[in-house]
């Protein structure tokens, strides 16, 4: 079984690295610099590249959590959790690169821009989701509560996005450089963005697989340890 799953793993890894390299080259070299923002705009390719699989990760949490509650099969819990972890990591990348891009373009590290705010809240929701598991000892309880929290959290994501945007209409943005003059126009820019998206999607798949396998190993381990304890107790 192990050798069977090793080959697709390797293919996926190679594919991820290759796409990532190409995306890097395109984003940093081939795509032209933005007219107004200059080279900083290149952050955007990878910044956006992270958001997309981040969203996918969170919606997968929703899907897997529902599947868990229906079937009560631990594998769905492990898949949901691995996805949540990767989503959280990607969200962190978005949150870190966002301010780094904002400083030279907007002049401030943080503006309460809808995109930044909603990402921050999403990050907090899933930090809670990932953190909570460490504080519940019983496995079944942990799986069940995580699934419920995962469902609530992930279904909240669209509302977070919607409400932060709605709020922005009420208060016009501060002196923020709009995207009207700059933005993605050159075909090479589009290619760079698409490549980054592809690279991070592949990366998500890879990390998610690894995380799930790790959780499966963990489960196997605790099952073994439990059987050992039982055997020793009886002996």
């Amino acid at each position, binding site marked *: 079984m192990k050798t069977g799953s090793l080959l697709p793993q390797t293919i996926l890894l190679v594919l991820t690295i290759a796409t990532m390299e190409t995306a890097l080259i395109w984003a940093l070299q081939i795509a032209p610099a933005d007219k107004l923002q200059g080279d900083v705009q290149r952050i955007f390719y990878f910044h956006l590249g992270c958001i997309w699989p981040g969203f996918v990760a969170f919606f997968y949490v929703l899907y897997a959590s529902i599947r868990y509650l229906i079937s*009560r099969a631990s594998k769905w819990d492990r898949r949901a959790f691995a996805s949540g972890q990767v989503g959280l990591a990607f969200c962190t990348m978005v949150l870190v690169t966002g301010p780094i891009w904002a400083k030279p373009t907007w002049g401030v590290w943080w503006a309460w821009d809808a995109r930044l705010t909603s990402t921050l809240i999403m990050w907090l929701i899933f930090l809670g989701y990932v953190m909570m598991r460490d504080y519940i*000892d*019983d*496995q*079944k309880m942990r799986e069940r509560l995580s699934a419920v929290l995962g469902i609530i959290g992930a279904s909240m994501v669209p509302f977070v996005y919607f409400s932060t945007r709605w709020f922005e209409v009420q208060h016009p943005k501060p002196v923020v450089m709009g995207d009207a003059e700059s933005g993605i126009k050159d075909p090479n820019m589009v290619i760079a963005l698409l490549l980054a998206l592809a690279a991070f999607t592949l990366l998500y798949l890879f990390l998610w697989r690894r995380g799930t396998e790790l959780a499966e190993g963990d489960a196997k381990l*605790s099952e073994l*340890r*439990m059987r050992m*304890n*039982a055997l020793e*107790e*009886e002996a």
Partner: protein
Amino acid sequence: MSFEVHLDKIDKVYGETWALKGVSATIQTGDRITIVGHNGAGKSTLLGLTATLTNPTRGTICYEIDGTVAKDRGQIRRHMSMLSHSPMLYADLTARENLKFFAGLYGVSTDHHGIDSRLEKVGMKAAGDTLFRACSRGMQQRISFARAMLGDPDLLLLDEPFSGLDKKGTERLKNILMTEYRHGWLLVTHDLGQGYEMANRLWIFKHGRLAHNLKKSELDFKEYVSLCEANLPEEVLR
């Protein structure tokens, strides 16, 4: 009215500890079963499982009401209730208010008079309007018994109901249990004498397994005690 519970190869795992291991047994109508076992041997877990509060890790529990298998949790729950060492009543309400609330919650229609007669049965009519927190431990446990009896259950799940009671309180509650209640129960206890006296079946748990499942008529008290001593660590027997 018959109410039977069939446990089939029940496993229950908490974290990395095995609370129950391959437990198969049948609880028949009118069985008064005393359960003993060392701490963490899965006795309370068994009650929780029987009460449909939690699901077994493996295995199935099947409920038979009047010969037909019941699937609906609500229907099953109407036939059981639990009396544990914590009274499950609100400290800031009076005994009467508490009973009224739970009667409503459990769908038992009781007027003012009905609640009164239930309180009278446990000898608590006079204390019906005192706040629950002001009642003594013994009184609290008797009111809690009245709560457990609200739905006229066919199976009582007793999780160390006597813990924290003094001798007099224990005697009184035991008397009420023996005289006011006619159906079966599962009683988890540490007190072998009491357990033997109240039972017609005896279960002994060891390491999550149901080590012995005996009729009371099969052995006298002395044999029972020696069997328990053989299976349980000393600290349980005190």
